[in-house]
């Protein structure tokens, strides 16, 4: 493999000579100072590190940067400033969907990935959409309400 890896992160082209087996999560947090993705379990169970890669929700702890070569990666920082993020942010706040906040970046990415595929989700769709994200504070109902609220208010945005 050539020494440089090229990634598109939050709309910026990044080239790096880091080891190709480095986890995308570590690359984002330590090399890029993008700390929205969190390390919870480090084995794909909790979704706290979830990012969007080429439109799909993916756990960045299970991906090496070599395998993400050439891909388009969006973290919660990249979503910030978009109309979709505005709606999600307000709905999460109003519904009380954020308590300690550790799961929130992953939840926002899961919500965005879901709404990008199903713009008018049912409650079951939402539960399925965030089924890979753990939250130990809210009991999930507030998060589900927030996403349903965002779908309604953001009608046409996704």
């Amino acid at each position, binding site marked *: *493999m050539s020494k440089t890896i090229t990634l598109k992160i939050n709309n910026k082209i990044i080239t790096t000579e880091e*080891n*190709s*087996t*480095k*986890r995308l999560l*570590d690359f984002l*947090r*330590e090399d890029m100072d993008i700390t929205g993705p969190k*390390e919870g379990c*480090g*084995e*794909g*169970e909790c*979704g706290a590190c*979830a990012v969007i890669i080429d439109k*799909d*929700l*993916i*756990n960045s*702890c*299970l*991906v*090496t940067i*070599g*395998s993400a*070569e*050439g891909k388009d990666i969006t973290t919660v920082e990249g979503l910030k400033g978009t109309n979709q993020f505005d709606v999600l942010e307000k709905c999460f706040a109003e519904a009380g969907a954020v308590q300690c906040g550790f799961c929130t970046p992953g939840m926002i990415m*899961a919500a965005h*990935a879901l709404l990008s595929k199903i713009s008018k989700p049912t409650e079951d769709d939402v539960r*399925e*959409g965030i*089924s*890979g*994200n753990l939250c130990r504070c809210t009991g999930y109902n507030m998060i589900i309400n927030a996403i349903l609220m965002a779908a309604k208010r953001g009608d046409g945005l996704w």
Partner: protein
Amino acid sequence: MVEGYLASTFKEALKILNEKDVIIYAGGTDLMVKNKNEASLLPKFSKDLLYLGNLSELKEIKEYDSDIKIGAACTLSSLLRVESIPEVLKKAIRNIASPAIRNVGTIGGNICNASPAGDTLPILYALEAKLKLVNINSSREVNINDFILGPGKIILNDNEILESIVIEKSNFNKIYYEKIGARKASAISKISFVALAEVSNQKIKDIRIAIGSVGPKIVRVKDGEDILIGRELKDIENLISKVKKVYSEKIIPINDQRSTSIYRKTVALRLIQYFLNIELEKLEGGNSNE
């Protein structure tokens, strides 16, 4: 230090594999967990990686008159979006892990990982999937049952790649799938159970039962199926105890952190009984591709 090889074509990947000692990395969801290290340290891979996940040749799904060919690096999610994929396989995939894992994990990876709890495996055993293994000079086709030798053990040679999975189209009109896990998402199966039957004129023309997580390999018992093939539905009641006895001898589960041997065996036998007693009578119409 461990490095990665990114081939741009399948041919190039085969060439690299022929020359170097590498670990094949498709989706990586199992490998990354197996080789997990402390946070911010490189994963503990012992050899260089060969990335296959982006090769378009391994991501194709082709439908032919009598079968469907699935590229080994198709992600589990991508299979859910293709009409020609048998509904029973989609059912199993919807119960695997979570959306974020299904978006990266591949069907080829689920097979080559050869976990007794691999959730696509019982379906692929029941559908008698054939696997195409390719090296730089030649290729061969093997039945999935011959491919997997035991937990994590497969017959893939060091210079071979699982290229595709071929599933024959079938006429099963009774389909039943059940996964028993501790919770709905991200659960590793305590038991996974699939039963397929082709019933016409109240007669069983074909039946396949495959059970996962109850032994080192997926359990499929030809002797058990043969008792039922050719019989009329009304005769089933009298055959159930005989069938259960045959399966009882072949289902030898272990105790582990997820479940116990006795639980697994009891539930597996009851699922067989449930399928034969209730589902066979109930599920009228439909077919494996519905």
